């Protein structure tokens, strides 16, 4: 099946093509939503931000020069929106689910189970990483972004991308260690 390339869709959006916008939205809204949700950790906020991100894409489509992949450009916009929202939101507004994720240090029954289930423990630890570490882990592992693309999205040098990813993984190992799982690294 032939699909219209993202760059073509964006050039049509620049010309005011609403249908092209619908296609682009259908193609990327889940991925962008998940990226934003992992950063802001609140579903309602993430939904609101999705509308803002795609509205910006609609407005800025004419400025897209195609130097990077369309998904890289869209994730850059999403990241900016998410971090701006995080700066606006006071700590106490974090929802219960998020608080549970952050404070889950005690040996609760769930944690006890996690000790037995390494995969579950790993997923729990992934939610406990800092925003900076979460975003780089997601960009590399889930959004399949190269070193160069992560550097562009996050706005840091490529060497820093590599070291930040290394420290994010190191932190993950430390969190697992706290749950009684020794990976033998670092």
């Amino acid at each position, binding site marked *: 099946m*032939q699909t*219209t*390339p993202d*760059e*073509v869709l964006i*050039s*049509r959006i*620049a*010309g*005011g093509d*609403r249908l092209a*916008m*619908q296609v682009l*939205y259908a193609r990327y*809204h*889940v991925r962008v*939503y*998940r990226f934003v*949700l*992992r950063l802001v950790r609140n*579903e309602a906020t*993430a*939904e*609101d931000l*999705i*509308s803002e991100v*795609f*509205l910006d894409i*609609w*407005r800025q489509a*004419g400025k897209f*020069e*195609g130097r990077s992949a369309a998904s890289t450009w869209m994730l850059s916009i999403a990241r900016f929106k998410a971090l701006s929202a995080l700066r606006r939101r006071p700590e106490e507004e974090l929802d219960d689910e998020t608080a549970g994720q952050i404070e889950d240090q005690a040996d609760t029954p769930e944690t006890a189970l996690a000790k037995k289930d*390494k*995969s579950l423990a*790993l*997923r729990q630890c*992934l*939610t406990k990483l800092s925003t900076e570490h979460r975003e780089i*882990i*997601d960009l*590399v*592992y*889930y959004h*399949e*972004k*190269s*070193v160069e*693309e992560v550097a562009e999205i996050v706005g840091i040098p490529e060497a820093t991308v*590599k*070291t930040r*990813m*290394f420290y994010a*993984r190191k932190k*993950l190992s430390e969190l697992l260690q706290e749950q009684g799982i020794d*990976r*033998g*690294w670092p």
Partner: protein
Amino acid sequence: MNEKQEAPERQDIEQLLPWHAAGTLSRRDAQRVEDALARDPELARRYALVRDELAETIHLNETLGAPSARAAEKLFAKIDAEPARRAAVSLNLGNRIADFFASLSPRTLAWSVSAAVFAILLQAGLIAGVLLQETKTTGYQTASAPTTDPGVGAFALIRFAPQASSDDVTKFLEANKLSIAAGPMAGGLYKVRIAVTGIPKGELARIVKKLQEDKVVSFIATAE
């Protein structure tokens, strides 16, 4: 190789492991990582940890669900409230071309390509025919004097100065009654005919030395 020498290389490779697992490394880097993994069991063990992280990150993200229809409704309501936009005129040529081809159905595209290939072949045939016709009737004309045997005469190999224009080269050839017999060859060299008949070696060397002084010439030497 001792450990001190190996450590920086291993650290460098280890930092690439997440991208290797995700398949986003360049071919060259991916090969470097593959080679290192094959010879370093400890690195291979750490790579297994990276693959676990990759799998669980995907799993975690996939359980996050999707935004409700409300998000889309809100977005398109906002878009509809935006002022109407004129069709973009600043689209770059590449996008326009891509847009055009994307709009064609595969069948139309296939017919268009076939027609274009036929037109090119037809044009090439016509040009070749014209050239062959010219060759038959007039023969190859040199700047110095006509000759029917390209192997007869006195020759030199010449490389023109990079800054010399084609006009400079033409004037130089005409002024010295030279003609190009072959080239360009490797190194930007041309074989030029200095005389239509053989001349003594000393005389040829004297002419070549004189030609060397012209600013159009970067290199010249006698040739068989």
